[in-house]
């Protein structure tokens, strides 16, 4: 499985290969430089520069007060960040790994997400919570969770996740600039993905709440985000090249999970008439359920087949040696596409797709 995201090809000469990690770091740097209210805090973000080195050099450039190593306590980090925001600062906190954000869950759900609402807008929470998430890097237990379902189900939060180098910069700047709290999910295994990119003149990208069609296609839409975007792009290429059927797959990168960009997604699905949602997070009660349900509500009469889902299994994230079996890969995506009832009329018995047990057809 590829971890490289297709990036818009370079045009200007000052574009050099940059990693997602570098673009994120640059976004933090520029935000710190542009706005004295921005403060970065978290475990090991200072002297060490973060375990993924995303905050590397920030403490040196802006001082330990602007990029602060905290004691080791996630509720404390989020809770003190709430207080800092109450005083007019714009905290950017780092949770070291997905599963290590859980100790701060109460602060996130009971305060960060609700403070604006309960105070009728008098205490907004312009806070960014950066969380490296997802698997594929051989992490041991508790280091590869896809926890987005929890954040999606929490009104008052925005949930944003980039898949490209340009988006990493643009969306992180937008998140920090947002007057609402943003859970900013960074796909771990894309930290080292590269694209040509100019840090001095970063590409303008659409803002929070906007999905983007990464690849045009006519046969079916793959709806995806974060770490599964490169997988879907690869699947689309494979379908084009190898597929006996010659499917021309459209790939939508959601970029923001909440609020959900219904218009872009629905427009694509209306055009193609078929859709598969792809994500790493477990399928049951995962983001795909919401997306499939919502798109079906909006596009029911355009659908030639039910919206299918390719997701992580409904299991705790596997140990490193078994993770490849869990992660949605190109083959699994293409299998799902194959089950989108391409023959005219209904074929019963498809695995996991349309009904396989009892009951009649149409």
């Amino acid at each position, binding site marked *: 499985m590829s971890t490289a995201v297709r990036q818009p090809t370079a045009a200007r000469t000052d574009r050099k290969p940059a990693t997602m990690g570098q673009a994120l770091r640059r976004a933090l740097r520029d935000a710190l430089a542009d706005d004295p209210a921005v*403060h970065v805090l978290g475990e090991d973000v200072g002297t060490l520069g973060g375990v993924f080195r995303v905050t590397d050099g920030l403490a040196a450039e802006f001082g330990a*007060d602007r990029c602060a190593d*905290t*004691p080791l*306590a996630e*509720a*404390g980090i*989020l*809770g*003190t*960040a*709430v*207080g*800092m*925001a*109450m*005083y*007019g*600062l714009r*905290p950017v906190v780092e949770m070291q790994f997905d599963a290590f954000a859980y*100790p701060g869950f*109460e*602060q996130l759900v*009971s*305060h960060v997400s*609700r*403070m*604006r*609402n*309960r*105070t*009728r*807008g*008098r*205490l*907004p929470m312009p806070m960014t919570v950066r969380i490296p998430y997802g698997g594929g890097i051989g992490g041991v237990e508790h280091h590869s969770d896809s926890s987005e379902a929890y954040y999606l189900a929490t*009104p*008052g939060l*925005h949930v944003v996740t980039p898949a490209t180098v340009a988006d990493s910069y643009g969306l992180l700047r937008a998140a920090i600039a*947002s*007057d*609402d709290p943003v859970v900013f999910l960074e796909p771990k295994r894309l930290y080292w993905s590269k694209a040509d990119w100019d840090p001095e003149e970063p590409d303008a990208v659409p803002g929070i*709440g906007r999905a983007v069609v990464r690849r045009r296609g006519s046969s079916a839409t793959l709806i995806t985000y974060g770490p599964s975007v490169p997988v879907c792009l690869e699947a689309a290429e494979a379908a084009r090249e190898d597929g006996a059927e010659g499917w021309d797959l459209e790939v939508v990168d959601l970029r923001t999970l*909440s*609020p*959900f960009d*219904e*218009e872009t997604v629905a427009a694509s699905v209306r055009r193609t008439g078929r859709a598969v949602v792809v994500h790493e997070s477990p399928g049951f009660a995962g983001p795909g359920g919401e997306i499939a349900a919502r798109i079906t509500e909006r596009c029911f009469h355009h659908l030639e087949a039910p919206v299918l889902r390719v997701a992580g299994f409904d299991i705790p994230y596997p140990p490193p040696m078994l993770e490849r079996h869990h992660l949605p890969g190109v083959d699994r995506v293409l299998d799902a596409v194959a089950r989108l009832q391409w023959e005219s009329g209904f074929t019963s018995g498809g695995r996991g797709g349309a009904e396989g047990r009892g009951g009649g057809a149409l």
Partner: protein
Amino acid sequence: MTVLEQPGTYAPAPPPSWRPRTEAAPLLPEAEPYRVLGTRTAEREGGEQTGPDAGLLRRLYAAVVQGRRFNEQATALTRQGRLAVYPSSRGQEACQVAAALALRAEDWLFPSYRDTLAAVARGLDPVEVLSLLRGDWHHGYDSPGTRVAPLCTPLATQLPHAVGLAHAARLKGDQVAALALVGDGGTSEGDFHEALNFAAVWQAPAVFLVQNNGFAISVPLAKQTAAPSLAHKAVGYGVPGRLVDGNDAVAVHEVLTEALDRARSGGGPTLVEAVTYRLEAHTNADDATRYRADGEVEAWRAHDPVTLLERELRDRGLLDEETVREAEEAAERQAAELRERMHQDPQPDPMELFAHVYAEPTPQLREQAAQLRAELAAEHEAAAAARPAGNPAAGEETR
């Protein structure tokens, strides 16, 4: 190479690097709660007047009398269905009032659900303070304007907020302290621990006042902690701990004033335990007879914070019937005004449910708002149609 051949000199003790640490002794709280009221009377008899400032005593007295009346009035409002719930601070008025009065205008207060009185004593509009408990909105007053954070119901979660705010103020160079209130039960939560630790490491200008009222709902202190006192928890954070008689308004005021002064001047946080007692049930919905004996309550009534202050004023010759009447009348006026205003039905706007979730409503929220608006319009129409008795099937009134 065997271990015998390992290089390096032999160090009998760990290198000094292990110990960036302070002395424990100055952190330890007093063995008995610090008291002013009563205790100094004897002292003063023999010599000069060293007791607390008369003006402060009078201010505390007036506030405590008002506070007692406020608690009574709010409890009465629950019986009249005007409050969804009220957690009375009867018996704890000295803590509440002293906390409010110890603050400077630029300081922040972080109250819990039981600390309405502290907010009121700070000068906030009582009706706005009661919003959460009345049920018209989650929070009723202007927090940045009043420098009082919202009343907090998830226990101890307000403590890290106070630390973060205090830290931010310090970073900005402002001379601002944050005073956070929490109950004895709340000290068991992880957030208490994390807040104290952050405050200590950052030397944030935050003061923590634990109102130890003996119970967390039904659970007595002995099932909550085995510590010598809650103030002793300070030692584990490298923060000074103070133990104070929470029914002694002057003592609480003095200890808090000192702690807040130190905080503002860069001396770091303080943990204060005020020993007090909740004279009423946890809330009007609770039945305290299920878990505590009348005798205990009676014993505490004999140590009533209002009586303690009053007696001091009397002994000092600062209390005549005139002063008493004035305080009581002021309390009565406040109560009457509260009663009257709380008997007006608030008209919260259902459409506001969508207004503050985000800075801008999302497309989804706009859709949902439209749905509710349509429903409300239909309801309104149905009610209007019912009124002229034109449609017998549509409304109760015409049946």
